[in-house]
């Protein structure tokens, strides 16, 4: 469980006439066993936020601090495409991101593969797996480093609806079992409402428009009336900030 503190984050790309502001003065403060979703239309800077949190990009301005009991936190990542090494087996893909290759580590990786129902696929190459299985490997890889915080960038957006649903349930179970802090970027409001404690709604121009808490008991079903109401609530927020207007 990590603590995430973001202050006055600003990010722009390009220069002159081509300049694009991706994040505009974003400040955040959360931590502990929470599942935070970041939602918004495409181009609202939600992926940029995640890239900055995960250190892939550096901000133009502002500070980010991700700590665990005062020391820098360990982080794990799940990407939109699984980003597996095609020339290494599933197990070797997990071992690639570990600090060591001891028998203990191997055993831990195998255990996480079993958690995502892929215990028997350890020796397969990613190309031999379906898209859903590849994404499962990606999730197992992120958990297998035993991180304090997990960053996920639309991990289910490439999958069909049924597979995505199954994987959401698995992810939720793993989050409950391991007690991690999760930052989850998605454009699917239903998905965000189903999984998170908090939803950060971003508007065009990289502005944090609304911070919506979701205090409903788990497990949640989208067809449940409370969940449906919460979803409608987020959509109303979208409407209010003008995110639904055509650009």
């Amino acid at each position: 469980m990590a603590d995430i503190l973001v202050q006055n984050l600003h990010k722009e790309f390009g220069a002159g006439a081509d300049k694009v502001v991706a994040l505009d003065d974003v400040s955040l403060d959360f931590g502990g066993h929470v599942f935070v979703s970041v939602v918004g239309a495409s181009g609202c800077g939600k992926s940029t936020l995640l890239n900055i949190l995960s250190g892939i990009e550096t901000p133009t301005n502002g500070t980010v601090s991700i700590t665990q009991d005062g020391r820098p936190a360990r982080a794990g990542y799940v990407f939109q495409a699984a980003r597996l090494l095609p020339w290494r087996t599933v197990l070797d893909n997990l071992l690639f991101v570990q600090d060591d290759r001891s028998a203990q580590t191997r055993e831990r990786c195998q255990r996480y593969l079993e958690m995502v129902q892929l215990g028997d696929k350890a020796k397969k190459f990613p190309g031999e797996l379906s898209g859903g299985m590849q994404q499962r490997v990606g999730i197992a890889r992120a958990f297998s480093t035993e991180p304090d915080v997990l960053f996920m960038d639309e991990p289910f957006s490439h999958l069909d609806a049924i597979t995505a649903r199954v994987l959401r349930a698995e992810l939720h179970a793993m989050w409950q079992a391991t007690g991690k802090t999760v930052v989850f970027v998605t454009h699917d409001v239903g998905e965000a409402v189903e999984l998170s404690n908090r939803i950060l709604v971003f508007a065009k121009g990289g502005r944090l428009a609304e911070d919506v808490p979701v205090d409903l008991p788990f497990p949640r079903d989208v067809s449940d009336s409370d969940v449906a109401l919460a979803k409608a609530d987020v959509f109303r927020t979208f409407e209010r900030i003008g995110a639904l207007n055509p650009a």
Partner: protein
Amino acid sequence: MTTAVAPVSTDGPRRVSEEELARRARRRQRFKTWFWRLAGYAFFLGLWEFASGRFMPETLLPGPSAVFATFGDLWATGKVPDAFATTLTRIAIGFALAFVVGVLVGMLMQNRFLAGFFRDAVTIGVTTPGLIWALITAIIFGNREAGPLIAIVLTTFAIITVNVSEGIKTLPTDLIDMARSFGVGVLKRNRHIVIPHLAPFVFTGVRFGFSMAWKVTVLTEVFSSSSGIGFEMRTATQLFRLPEFLTWILAFYVLALFLEKVVLEVIERRFFAWRKTIRS
């Protein structure tokens, strides 16, 4: 894995000159590229010139200046235009034949039986070195005109066939269906869909084919002709006149490269302007 506090400097880029800065960076990049390109020319030409007479005797490796001087001498003898004209005529006739054969076979390969029939012919055509055709035609036809022509056809038809049948395979059936559903007639369909689609494929075949055709033409001339660039090259090597040999091959190489890279590419760009978006 750690993500530490990332204190970032707070002074962003100055906005006043951003555009100017970007333009300047681009200009600097272009300047740099040209500088290194010219440096490359200077280095390789210099190396060549330097090596001549030092690493290797000048009779074996004449430098670029010597080659240039030799070209002047050859030009003065009046042999150059004749030899060029002879070889270019052979290429033109042989390549025209190869083009007809290549396109014809490519079209015939739409049929399943004929596709199987010509499959190995194309493989053989593509994999057999031009040298072999040059030798076989030379031994059979001697120095008759037919030899080089047949060698050209055999070495180049396959590449044109490959391209044509590739074009036919990728015909935009969705567009053809669309046209049919709008009741567009066969002729109009061919003119506006089939031919514009096939033309770039045929043209690619022509460009590749030409680059092979001129090489194999010179090769056959080396073995069996009594005129043309290849013949002059053979004479020069037999007399052990390296500067002359190098001048012949380099002069013709420059001409062929000009036709291949400049003339054909300019024509292609003019005809297929609509493809530009895909390329860039």
